C-alpha cells in the first residue's frame, strides 16, 4: 500500500536530486513514471514511435543523472521543463538525422534552451561508445574478466574460481594483460 502510494506521486524536484545522489531506487522509479507520459506524448505526436520515446527519455534521465552526480546541476527552471527541453532538443536532432524533420514541432510544454548540457553529454557519449567498442573488440575471456572485475566489482578470488585459474596470481597476471589490451584498444581507437 505504501509502495503504491510512493509510486503514484510525482517526486518534488529536490527529492529527485537527493534521491539521485543517494542512489535511491524508489525515487528513480517515481521520477521515471512521473514524466514519461509527457515525453511519450511529445515523441509520438511528432513522427516518433513509443520506442523512440523510450530511447530519448532514458538519454535525458542519464543526462540529468550525470549532471546531478557531477554536482553541477542547478535548478534554474522546473525539473519537468528541464526534462522536456532536453527530450525536445534530442528529438529534433534525431529527426533531422533521419531527415524526417518537417520544420515544425508540436509542443505540449514550455521549454528552455539546453544546448550546453547536450554538448557536455555528447563528449560522454563518445567515450561511452568508445569503451563499448573496445570491450567488444577485446574478446573472451578478457571481456568477461574486465566486466566482472571493473563493472560488477567481483573479487579476484571469485574470478579465479569462475575461470578455473589454479591460483590468484595467475588470474591477476591474466587480468593485467587484459587491462593492458583494453587500454590499448581504448586509446588507439579513432
Amino acid at each position: 500500500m505504501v509502495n503504491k502510494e510512493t509510486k503514484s506521486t510525482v517526486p518534488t524536484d529536490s527529492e529527485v536530486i537527493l534521491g539521485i545522489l543517494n542512489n535511491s531506487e524508489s525515487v528513480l522509479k517515481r521520477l521515471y513514471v512521473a514524466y514519461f507520459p509527457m515525453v511519450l506524448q511529445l515523441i509520438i505526436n511528432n513522427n516518433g514511435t513509443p520506442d523512440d520515446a523510450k530511447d530519448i527519455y532514458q538519454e535525458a534521465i542519464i543526462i540529468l543523472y550525470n549532471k546531478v552526480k557531477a554536482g553541477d546541476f542547478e535548478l534554474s527552471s522546473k525539473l519537468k521543463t528541464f526534462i522536456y527541453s532536453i527530450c525536445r532538443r534530442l528529438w529534433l536532432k534525431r529527426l533531422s538525422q533521419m531527415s524526417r524533420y518537417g520544420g515544425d514541432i508540436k509542443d505540449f510544454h514550455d521549454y528552455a534552451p539546453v544546448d550546453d548540457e547536450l554538448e557536455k553529454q555528447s563528449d560522454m557519449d563518445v567515450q561511452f561508445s568508445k569503451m563499448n567498442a573496445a570491450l567488444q573488440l577485446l574478446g573472451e575471456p578478457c571481456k568477461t574478466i574486465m566486466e566482472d572485475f571493473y563493472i560488477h566489482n567481483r573479487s579476484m578470488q571469485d574470478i579465479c574460481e569462475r575461470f578455473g585459474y589454479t591460483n590468484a596470481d595467475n588470474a591477476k597476471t591474466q587480468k593485467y594483460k587484459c587491462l593492458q589490451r583494453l587500454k590499448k584498444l581504448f586509446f588507439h581507437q579513432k
Partner: protein
Amino acid sequence: MNDGKLLEEIERYLNGEMNAEERKQFEAMSSSDAAIGQKIAEQKEFLKVLKQYSERLALEERLNAIHDEIDVHTLADELIVHPSGIVRLWRNHHSKISVAASIAIFVAMFAMFISGTFNNHDAKYMQLARKVGSIESQTNQLKQRVAQTTTKPGYHIVDKFRATGFAITADGLIATNYHVVGDNDSVYVQNAAGKLFKAKVVFVAPKTDIAILKIADTAFKGLAAIPYTFKRSESDLAENVYTYGYPQDSPVYGRGELTSSNGLNGDSTNYQISIPLNPGNSGGPLMDGRGNIIGIINAKETQLEGVHFAIKSSYLLSAIDSVSKEDNAKVLLNTKNSMVNLSTVQQLKKLKNYVFMVKVYDK
C-alpha cells in the same frame, strides 16, 4: 619492471593499497621518471571512463526495468493527438493522393489543350466581321414564303458576312480582312451611293489577317484619285485616330487614340486602339488625323472594355508588294496626300467615297 607489473603497482597506488613505505618509494620513482607519471595519469583517466561506463550500463538496466513496468501501449493510445480525418487521410495516403492529383491535372490540361481552351482567339478575341446570323436568314426565308403566297416567287440572296473595305488604288484594289472573305469567292462591295460591284479576291495573308480584293465588274468605272496615303513607319502612342466603316447599313465614324504599339499578347503586327468598334468594322481604315492610313481594323478583346486592335499599315504595304509580284504589275500607290490640312469633317467627306461595305455570300 615489466609493463604488467608496473600496471599492478599503479593500480595498487591509485587504490590506496600500498603501505607508507611502498608509497614513498613509488612516488619517488614516478617523479624521477616522466614516463611513469604519464602512465599513472593515463590509468587514472581510463579507470574514470570505465567507471562511468559501468555506471551508465547499470543505470540503463535500472531504467529498462522501470520502463518494462509501464504499459506504454495504452499510454500511447491515450496521448496521441488524433488529427482530423482529412489530415489522417493525407498522412496515410499522401503519395497516392499526389499521384492521383498529378494525373488529374495532366488529364485536365490535355483535355483543355484538345478542346482548344488555350487558343485565346476563341475565348476573348473576336474578329469583327458582322455575321448576319442564321436566325435572321431564317426569318427572311419565312418572310419570302409568306410573300410567295401573294406575289411572284423571287430569288433572294442572303449574305453571310458584312464588313468594311477601303480602296488602295483608284482602279479598284480594295483592302479588307482575311477573316471577312475567308475562302469564299462570292464577294461584293457596295459603295457609299449603294451601288454593288462584284469583286474577286486577289491576295490573302491569313497570318496577318489581310485580304486584297479587286473590283471586277463592268459597271465599275474607276475612282477619283485616292486622297490619302499609306504610312510606312509605325505611329506613336496617343496619336488621335479614327475609323469609318459599316457596322450597320449606314456608315459610322468612330474616334479614339492609339493605346499600345502591340496587340493581344504582345502581337507586334497589331496596334491597340480605343475606338469603340462593332462587328462590321472589320477591314475599315484606321486613319491618323493627317490623312494617312495607319492600319486596318480587325478585332476586339471581348473580355475587356475598349481594347480593340488594328493591323499595322506596314503589313498591308507588304501585302500590296506581294500582289505586285504575283501579277507582275506594279501597284502604284498614291503619294500625294490631299487630306492633310483638312478638318475631320472635310476628311470624312472625301474618305466616304473610298470606303466600301464588303458583302460575302455563301458559295
